[in-house]
């Protein structure tokens, strides 16, 4: 069987014919396998959903308990048969519960990696490379200008600014699922022990992380009336809120944003960011390239992001590669609370 007979591109998303299921479908389908809880990958209204326990819980928090007909739990590392295909979920290191999906059919091994990163993240399991024939990768940061710096130095930037401006509130934009909690965990590792304040929109997901056993220390929801008293505190909010009137009610706010996009100056300025923090939940260029090599795949399919550059690189390495031009990922943003512009980063 050729890989293209096993996985096809349909308007709903990637479709596995031997198993009769879709991966991360963008429209309602009968049977969906979901890699992780970001809203461009995990959508409501499917007949059945197979995903990790954590991803199912995230979907329930976002869309309510009835987000699909039947929810099935995928155990990491356990291979199950679906129709004529076998599927195995393995950690992707992207956000809590994120997984890659290995599909074996007709003697061919294909890995749909969803979104993934290789950098350290105390809030989720690390990425595990899977040997395969075809590796399906994202390319959100698929340009060699994206090289994420050392995490500790970025967290240090925020703490240094707090020391320099002890009376100003530091408003940090971060995606509600994953980035916000990772930032909290990194701040705790760096010894920051004051309460961390969060925008109401990220409270439930943060509670979920804590319930899943991720230590985040004391997290308090911002009470509107008390914003004026939060000088010198760290406040984490959805990216869309950093330029809102909401943010201006804090004492002389320093506007910050934690995202891989902050590597490019024009992006930071576009958002009016004064303290860009380059912290990303996606792989940077070097990690994309290294991961492709590690999987040993002879063929690479690129779902979304900067496909052209990554496809070109694969070809210069003697790998077969093609862009899938998938619509609906990244485009809509990843966060129900930040419904615009770029993908979660």
């Amino acid at each position, binding site marked *: 069987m050729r890989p293209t007979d096993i996985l096809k591109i349909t308007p709903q998303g990637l479709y596995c014919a031997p198993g009769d299921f879709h991966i991360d479908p963008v429209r309602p389908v009968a049977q969906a396998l979901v890699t992780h809880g970001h809203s461009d990958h995990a959508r409501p209204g499917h007949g059945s959903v197979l995903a990790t326990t954590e991803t199912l819980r995230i979907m329930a928090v976002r869309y309510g308990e009835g987000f699909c007909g039947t929810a099935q739990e995928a155990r990491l590392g356990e291979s199950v048969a679906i129709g004529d295909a076998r599927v195995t979920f393995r950690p992707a290191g992207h956000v809590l519960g994120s997984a890659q999906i290995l599909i074996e059919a007709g003697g061919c091994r294909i890995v749909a990696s969803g979104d993934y990163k290789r950098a350290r993240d105390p809030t989720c399991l690390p990425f595990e490379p899977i040997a395969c024939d075809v590796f399906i990768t994202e390319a959100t940061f698929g*340009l060699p200008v994206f*090289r994420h710096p050392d995490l500790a130095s970025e967290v240090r930037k925020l703490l240094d600014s707090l020391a320099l401006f002890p009376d100003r509130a530091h408003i940090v934009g971060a995606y509600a699922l994953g980035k916000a909690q990772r930032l909290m965990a990194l701040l705790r590792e760096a010894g920051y022990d004051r309460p961390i304040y969060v925008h109401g929109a990220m409270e439930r997901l943060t509670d979920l992380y804590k319930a899943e056993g991720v230590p985040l220390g004391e997290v308090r929801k911002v009470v509107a009336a008390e914003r004026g008293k939060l000088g010198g505190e760290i406040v984490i909010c959805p990216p869309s809120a950093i330029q809102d009137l909401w943010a201006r009610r804090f004492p002389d706010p320093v506007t910050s944003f934690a995202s891989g996009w902050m*590597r*490019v*100056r*024009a992006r930071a300025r*576009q958002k009016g960011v004064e303290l860009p923090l380059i912290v990303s939940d996606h792989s940077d260029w070097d990690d994309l390239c290294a991961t492709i090599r590690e999987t040993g795949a002879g063929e690479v399919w690129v779902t979304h992001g900067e496909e052209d*550059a990554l496809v070109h690189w694969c070809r210069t390495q003697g790998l077969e590669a093609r862009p899938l031009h998938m619509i609906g990922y990244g485009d809509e943003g990843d966060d129900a609370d930040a419904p615009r*512009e*770029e993908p979660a980063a």
Partner: protein
Amino acid sequence: MNRFAALLDRLAYEPRRNAKLRLAAAYLRETPDPDRGYAHAAMTGALTFRNAKPALIRGLIAERTDPVLFGLSYDYVGDLSETVALMWPTPQAGAPGHNRPPAPTLTEVVETLASASRSELPARLAGWLDHLDEIGRWALLKLITGNLRIGLSARLAKTALAQIGEMEPNAIEEVWHGLEPPYESLFAWIEGRGPRPESVDPAPFRPPMLSHPLEDVTDFRAALDPASFSAEWKWDGIRVQAVAGFHEGRKTARLYSRTGEEISGAFPDLIDALSGDPHFVGAIDGELLILRDGRVQSFNVLQQRLNRKTISPKLIHEFPAHIRAYDLLAEGEEDLRALPFAERRSRLEAFVGRLDPQRIDLSPIVGFPDWPALEAARADPAGAGAGVDAEAVEGVMVKRLDSPYVPGRPKGLWFKWKRDPFVVDAVLMYAQRGHGKRSSFYSDYTFGVWRQGQAGPELVPVGKAYFGFTDEELAQLDRFVRKHTTNRFGPVREVTHTADAGLVLEVAFEGLQRSTRHRSGVAMRFPRVSRIRWDKPPREADRIETLEALLATYPEPETTDP
């Protein structure tokens, strides 16, 4: 270099003027000579390096990276220096010759660039880039290409300098143009350690006075008394300051742009005339125009002269530069800026009266008894005294008769009232991703109007617009493009454009020219999206005949250079 790079990085992200000022002043106070002097020169654009052109940097990165990956990256980032700074492959620690020597100092960079031969430069630059981090590389590349646009104006940089010694910025301005980096005598004077620098500039730049849009004044027809104002044409050239003075018996004449950059080199014909005219000693604020047979040429013509790198006698002959004077800031040694406009104007008339009218003439006063009369003049400059020069009139300037000449943009003194642009309803056909900060949006729009094709009405592209909309409208347009894409060609998306489905954009533009480069045969000047016509079906958009008619009424010469 690292301390300077850190300053530039902070400045680049800091929107507040006062915070920028504090950052720059703190740097100048804490950094030793000569680094701070070179830093200041770099910030004000006073350093140029003949040897470091973008081509050199492109060459270095081309040796180290894949050309396709570089091209895609550059297209995404939108800035050469930043792209190279981010992509530069740093040598692995432990590799031979890379035992991490310290990063270069700013002084080392500046002095090396001044003395290194053309052939040495690439290796020097590559060595520095190897030992700096992303921010250091970015700052170095910005510096050596003379592209330090970090949101710190020359004026602000001088104000920061003045703050070290609690001086007035204008005191710095007045000694400035005679000085050379790294300004050690200037710092000594500011810090009270030395005398005022000797070489006082005989032809200094004086920060210009700017205006506000008249429409910004609520109900200006009732709020402003026409009898308190004078009006004149707003000419479509470049605003300049022409200055000449004597120092130790020698005359110096200079031409400055409104930002204080000296542009004398581009206009040797004017400089010769100003130096040679014994009556020209002082400072004039005016508009630089091209005059042929006494007739003002359009901005396109001026643009052709500005685009040329070498100033040949033929160019000077074909594009004679001329100044149309608005104001007199100094006459001889006397500073006139504190006088009321009416008084400066009569001094200006007498002053210009003694000069060669081929080179400098007066911008005429437009008399008006009331606002409707001025509105009529603005709508029809040809009929209101501008005559054949009317095409070069952008609108009118309205100035309080009692206004002193105040640097900057003071409130309530000077107003500009621009002519209404041309407007056409066109259909969005293609959209392309923007550069830099807009790279996540489809922000460049190709639009077309209807014409009769062989198979019935068809849309023909007539231009491209990438500004005129608010950020909110950009988000709406971007969403529309993504939802209605019918085809993709690399970074370009084709968008639905039929008679019944599609989006109409109201496009405003300043003028129209015949063009052989465009399929429609016409090219617009400064097209921009003035309104999004969500309400209008594409079939009701304008036809090419509308543009043809405009072209017949307002002909502009065809440009050779896009």
